[in-house]
């Protein structure tokens, strides 16, 4: 087994207090390893987005410990947070809201170079790096420079988000439903690039989705989340083809399929 890059013990997030208390994430344990592609599957309201924000350090953890690269995560100061964010980055669901529409595309990529300590590099070197990153996601930097994000299509925007990740080269990439706003026939491009990020750059990818088929297609191991808890986890083949938890069984049973018949049976009683 390779080294653990991110693990958590008893991660809990409680919103509100008193009577209005809601437990979004409930004592969740996990252990992600290097160069692994893990899917977290859950329906809306299962707490997967809350978990993502906690892992990113955008939300405080109510209870439990997160271990990053074997050490307990410490993001108590801004400097430490910055250091942590060099190791963990994210792609979000909606490419249209992921960009500041008042900033040009160049500034998005330049930010990444600066964050990796390249602020002092000569202009030509920076352009070279940006061109390489755009090439990685099959975009031409020369065509994008001086453009605004809203001049691109959704797919191009999401690819540029991956170019950003390519420049940042974090240890861990959290992809929060990166394809759910994109047409099915362009989905493969994004998925391919994520796999490339793992294979060529060596990232560990946490893929968040509600589509159990997609999770099965792309991931090495799968965590199924229901009401803030992981009900099942294991390798993709194990979990999807031989589910053990009732929730997973129901989920797989209710998803329309094309080979096996899709019955209305049990769920309807």
């Amino acid at each position, binding site marked *: 087994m390779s080294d653990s890059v991110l693990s958590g013990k008893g991660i809990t997030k409680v919103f509100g207090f008193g009577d209005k208390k809601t437990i979004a994430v409930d004592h969740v344990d996990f252990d992600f390893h290097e160069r692994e592609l893990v899917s977290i599957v859950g*329906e*809306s309201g299962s707490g997967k987005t809350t978990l993502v924000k906690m892992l990113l350090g955008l939300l405080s953890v109510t209870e439990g410990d997160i271990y990053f690269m074997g050490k307990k995560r410490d993001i108590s100061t801004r400097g430490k947070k910055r250091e942590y964010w060099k190791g963990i980055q994210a792609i979000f669901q909606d490419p249209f809201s992921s960009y500041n529409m008042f900033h040009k595309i160049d500034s998005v990529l330049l930010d990444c170079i600066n964050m990796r300590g390249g602020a002092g590099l000569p202009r030509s070197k920076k352009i070279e790096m940006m061109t390489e990153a755009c090439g990685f996601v099959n975009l031409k930097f020369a065509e994008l420079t001086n453009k605004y994000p809203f001049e691109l*299509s959704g*797919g191009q925007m999401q690819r540029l988000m991956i170019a950003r990740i390519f420049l940042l080269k974090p240890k861990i990439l959290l992809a929060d439903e990166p394809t759910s706003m994109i*047409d*099915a*026939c*362009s*989905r*493969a*491009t994004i*998925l*391919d690039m994520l796999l490339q990020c793992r294979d060529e750059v060596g990232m560990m990818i946490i893929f968040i989705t*509600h*589509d*159990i*088929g*997609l*999770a*099965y*297609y792309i991931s090495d191991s799968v965590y199924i989340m229901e009401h803030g808890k992981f009900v099942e986890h294991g390798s*993709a*083949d194990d979990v*999807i*083809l031989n589910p053990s938890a009732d929730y997973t069984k*129901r*989920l*797989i049973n*209710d*998803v*329309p*399929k*094309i*080979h*096996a018949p*899709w019955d*209305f049976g049990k*769920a*309807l009683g």
Partner: protein
Amino acid sequence: MAKKMLEVKDLTTKYITRFRENIYAVDHVSFEVEEGKTLGIAGESGCGKSTLALSLMGYYFPPLYYSGGEITIDGRNISGLKPDDVRKSILGTEIAYIPQAAMNALNPTAKIIRFIEDVIHAHDPKKTKKDIYDLAKERFEILNLPSDVLQKHSVELSGGMKQRTVIAISTILSPKVLIADEPSSALDVTSQKLVIKMMYDLMNMGYIKSMIFITHELPLLYNVTDDIMVMYAGQIVESGSARQMVFDPVHPYSKGLMDSIIVPEEGTRDAKLTAIPGTPPNLKDPPKGCRFADRCKYVMPLCQTSFVTMRRFGELDDDGNAESQRRYRCIVPVHELKETFKREGGLRNTGGAAI
């Protein structure tokens, strides 16, 4: 031979932009739906499938305008009717429409029974509240919806229940054709199944005669519909039975679409997912030739220049019915396309072997 419930001939509708440009979002679309059948419409976002659904109702409001063609429901031509006539005599009784966000359209301050009263009173103002309540209660019970929903407000219902309630309300007058535009996309899979089950029930019990089902989720479309039509850039590019379309598409675009199907079943991981590169053409100025030419793997010089018409292929059955006949829009003959696909490894879904 089954009765034709809905017949659409060369329907063309357009959007007029603020700059007075015409965008033909539905361009010479022809198809028919027989009684008891469900027709599915597939395509990328922006291909015109939702516009087609709106256009079928015959209810146009700016910036959408009628431009040409005929819509016939159960032998009655409804194209060219005034919006008021459409609202009075078509919507609800001939055609019902369920948009994706239908469940958010319920006014939260009114009880469910009020909406049903409104719908019925629009067509039969004399009906008493008691009659309406009895009718609604009976219908709700048949459809496995608890009848106490009628006395509730929409905010008290869950998302799936709301969506099913909306469908029950819009079909209360037993319309002949139900158009469902992504009726279950915003729901989780279990609620989605209940919504689909309910639509089946409506169909089986004869409350609706035919259905048009629009979704971008292809596995769902495959399971729900009898026939599937693939739309691209405002045109139909291929149509056929659901099984043929999913396992044996002939148009390169349909094939690309079907290749993107991912289901949690064995074999999904074995074949590599491929994407269709590029983006659909801008309909302000559509290409002269094949609209898919720019993205097609098998493009030839002729594709760019010559207008491509719909072509029929397949054989007629014994009665001379065109039931097994399929249509596609490509200049390459069917057998050549099939051979090419086979050479390239066939369809992903079938594990590499075309049926």
